Structures are given as structure tokens and as C-alpha cells.
């Protein structure tokens, strides 16, 4: 079962190298690292990482962060033979930075995955070990302002607010109700990963702690920790 989870955005600019000389969002990176440190501190049997990808599949745990598709001149990580989708690479880097040396598994849920597909993956991840820590890499709407990547869509504010509420209050079942079509229209790429999270923690009422919740570039970034107390299990 899932005993603890961490939520982090999967934005490329989380990679410090990509923003150039200016760290741009050091507080966001710090919040992510704190969330992952907290996850590692819960001493799970393994950490399962999930993020959105072009297909639903498992990935070998051999690859680090590969930024070459985003900044060709930065090149590949030396010795890195396989590359994984960016959300998984960012997660792997966070786990490394947090000093987590335990077992980890890497998974993507397809951007177009149905709710059933997400639920199946979530249940499978929960069953990977007695004590699974889940690291969810997911972003909210990218249409939160006139200068946002997807311009402004007024529906994004209530959409993201509901996700934040669900996480903060531990009401993860609400995430299963997210309409994949609406999420796609709002460029909320985190939708499948949130639904994997909700399925993986089905029946639990975790305690949520919001570590960062803002949209400095018109994309909703949510960093949070979820923990399950003995009584709630």
C-alpha cells in the first residue's frame, strides 16, 4: 500500500541547468526537494515514480535526467545510455538530491489514458510492496493568464483550485472525477498522474501538506506531501 506520497510539478525549468545563469524559481525547487526528502524519510520499501508520458508503461531505473531535447548544448548526462521522459528524469534527480538510495520504479501514464487505465496502474503501484512511497510528477493548467503558455482560459482557476483542495484535504477521490477532456483543453498535463495517485491511495484519507502553490509563469505548480497515519490505515 501507499504510506506516503509527494507531488511535484514536471516543468522543464525545475532542472536548474535549463534556466541559465538565473535560478528563476529557487523556492519552487526547494519545495520539491523538501517534499521528496520528507517522502524518503518515511522509509518506504520502494519509491514508485509516476508522471505523464506518450504511453502507459514502466521504465528501467537506469536513466538520470537527460536535458538534451530541451537544451542540446547541455548534452546528455555522461554514461546515460537510456533516456526517460522528463517527469521521470526530474523525479530521479530529486530522489538523488534527497539522498534516497533505496529501490525505485519508474512509470508513465499516457496523456490520453482513460480513468480505468489510470486506476489499473494506481492499484498496481500500491501493490508493489507493503510500504510504497509514491512520487507524483504533475502540473495543473497552463492557461492561467494572458502570458501563460496557453493564454487565458477562465475555467483554469476553479479547475486548479479543486485539485489543490483535494490534495490539501486528503479528499483524493475528487481527483477521479476530473474530466480528461477538460484537463486536455486546459493543458493540465498532470491529470493522468493525479488519477493514478487517487487510485493508488483509494480508501485512505491521507493528511495533506501544501508546500508550494503558485503559477509564476501561468502554469499551476503544486508541491505537496501526503502521509497516512496509522489510525487512518
Amino acid at each position, binding site marked *: 500500500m501507499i504510506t506516503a506520497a509527494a507531488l511535484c510539478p514536471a*516543468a*522543464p*525549468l525545475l532542472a536548474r*541547468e*535549463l*534556466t*541559465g*545563469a*538565473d535560478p*528563476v524559481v529557487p523556492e519552487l525547487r526547494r519545495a520539491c526537494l523538501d517534499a521528496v526528502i520528507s517522502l524518503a524519510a518515511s522509509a518506504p520499501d520502494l519509491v514508485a515514480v509516476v508522471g505523464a508520458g506518450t504511453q502507459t508503461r514502466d521504465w528501467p531505473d537506469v536513466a538520470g535526467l537527460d536535458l538534451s531535447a*530541451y*537544451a*542540446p*548544448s547541455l*548534452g546528455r548526462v555522461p554514461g546515460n545510455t537510456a533516456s526517460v521522459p522528463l517527469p521521470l528524469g526530474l523525479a530521479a534527480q530529486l530522489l538523488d538530491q534527497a539522498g534516497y538510495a533505496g529501490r525505485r520504479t519508474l512509470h508513465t501514464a499516457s496523456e490520453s489514458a482513460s480513468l480505468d487505465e489510470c486506476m489499473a496502474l494506481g492499484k498496481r503501484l500500491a501493490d508493489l510492496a507493503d510500504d510504497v512511497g509514491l512520487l507524483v510528477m504533475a502540473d495543473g493548467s*497552463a492557461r492561467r493568464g494572458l502570458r501563460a*503558455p496557453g493564454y487565458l482560459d477562465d475555467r483554469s482557476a476553479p479547475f486548479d483550485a479543486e485539485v489543490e483542495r483535494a490534495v490539501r484535504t486528503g479528499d483524493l477521490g475528487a481527483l477521479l472525477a476530473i474530466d480528461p477532456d477538460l484537463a486536455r483543453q486546459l493543458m493540465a498535463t498532470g491529470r493522468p498522474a493525479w488519477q493514478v495517485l487517487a487510485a493508488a491511495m483509494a480508501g485512505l484519507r491521507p493528511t495533506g501538506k501544501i508546500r508550494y502553490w503558485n503559477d*509564476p*509563469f*501561468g*502554469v499551476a505548480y503544486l508541491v505537496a506531501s501526503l502521509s497516512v497515519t496509522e489510525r487512518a490505515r
Partner: protein
Amino acid sequence: MSETVADPPQSVLRLGRREFAPSEPLIMGIVNRTPDSFFRPGLTWDESVAMERVHQVIGEGADIIDIGGVPAAPGKQVDAEEEIRRTAGFIAAVRSAYPDVVISVDTWRHEVGRAACQAGADLINDSWGGYDERLAEVAAEFGAAIVCSHAGRQHPRTRPFRVAYQDVMADVLERTQLLAHRALAAGVQRERIVIDAAHDFGKNTWHSLEITRRLGEMVATGWPVLVSLSNKDFVGETLNVPPEQRLAGTLAATSVCAWHGARIFRVHQVPESRHVVDMVAAIRGQRPPARAVRGLA
């Protein structure tokens, strides 16, 4: 990294107390202590105005201040004593105001080089190409750096007259490396020797265009390369514009030299030049953008 220019065998450059990696392009801001230089004549003839100019170009991003007391063009004679009077005291004042900035003296005379180094100069910019062979000895004596230029065997302050080369770049390579080796033999440290093709010096416009196009051959020697392109006649003749309209042409030539791997850029217009060399360094993959967010949020 196949997208970037192949790295030539360049190494660290030492100027004064500072140390510069090959990936760090340096801007040398010109502050002339002359009443009659070709570009904005007399701009910094007054010493207090000259000091204001130093404050300004350092604020604009200059790494090196190049102080000269004699124009390159022929004109009213300036003897060594007068040249020292124009430069040495001012160098001392700049040194006192900026203990760490790199100060260069633009001179061909060893007496002036000595006075300048005593006043705090770190670099002797011998733009007339080793006319006075004792200049390298002065650089060695003071632990200073030296620029070894190709002036096409011209005497100081003379204009080229029907100059011809079988291969101008071959001549530049031969002369600048000869001078560099002489400087080494005189005791100048290897990391303090710079070479300069000296655009327009002993060259017609075709020659200056050719050495710009082939500047990579100088970089490939391993010696750090300085270029002095700023508002020069080869830019003016190429574009048919007077000195005050040569900025765009200067910057175009600057970007080509930067792409080839030149490391020091002697300029009048510091902020524009700083932008060009920083931009080219980023294109070469040697400098990260100042702040990249577009498409990455």
C-alpha cells in the same frame, strides 16, 4: 557537442591578478588621452572626463581599460615624454580607483611601457607590432602581459601605401607568432601573451576582410587573439559610411571574430559590444542564457 564550434587548444589567460578561461570573452574599452584620435576626437582629452569615461565603461561591462596617448594616424608629433605625461599619471589614477580592473597601455615605446607599468598597467598593447623590441623586456620585467600585433612592417603612425601580401593571413601568423616567441624568450609568461592581426594596420580593406574571414587560423595557433575592429576604415570602406555610422558594421565583424574564437575585443562602444560577444558565446554553447523560461514553464 557537434552543434558548437570545435574548441581550439586555447588555455587560460592571465592579465594582472585576474585569470580568464577561454570561454570568457573580454571587452577592452578604449579611453584615449589624445585630442585628435579618429573616433570622437578629444572625447577624453580632459582628465576628469577621461575618468568619468572609465567609470562609465566599467559600469557597462568592460573587463579591460585600454589607455593610449598617441593616435594611430599621422599627425602632430608626440614624443615619449609627452606620451608618458598623457598616460602614466592617468593610469595611476585608474589603478587607485579600481585595484582589480585590468589596465592596458596602448604604446609602441618601451619608455612609455615602463612608466605605464610602474603606474599600474597590466598589459602592453603594442599595436605597431614589435617596432621597439625592448617593449617585451619591459613586460617581462613587470610581469605584465603583451599584445603581439601584425603591423605589416609599417613604422608607427604611418598609413599603408600599396601594401601587398602573397597571403596576408600567412604573414600575420608568421609575424605574430615570431613576436610571441620573442616575448617568451624575453621572459614574458606564456599565459600573458596575446596576438592581434591588427586590422587596418599595414592593410587595405580587402586584407582586413580576409583576416576577419580567416581569424580561426590565428585562434588555432593556441595564442589568445585580440581584435581591434572598432569603427575602423575597413568597416567604413566596406559600407561606405563615416566613422559615426560604423557601429553596425563593427558589430557584424565583432560577431564573426567572436564566432571564430577571438577572446579580447578592443572597442569604443562597450554595451553593444558586450551584448554581441555574450550572444555569440551563448550561440557557441560557452555561456548559458542569463535567464531562460520561454517554453520551459
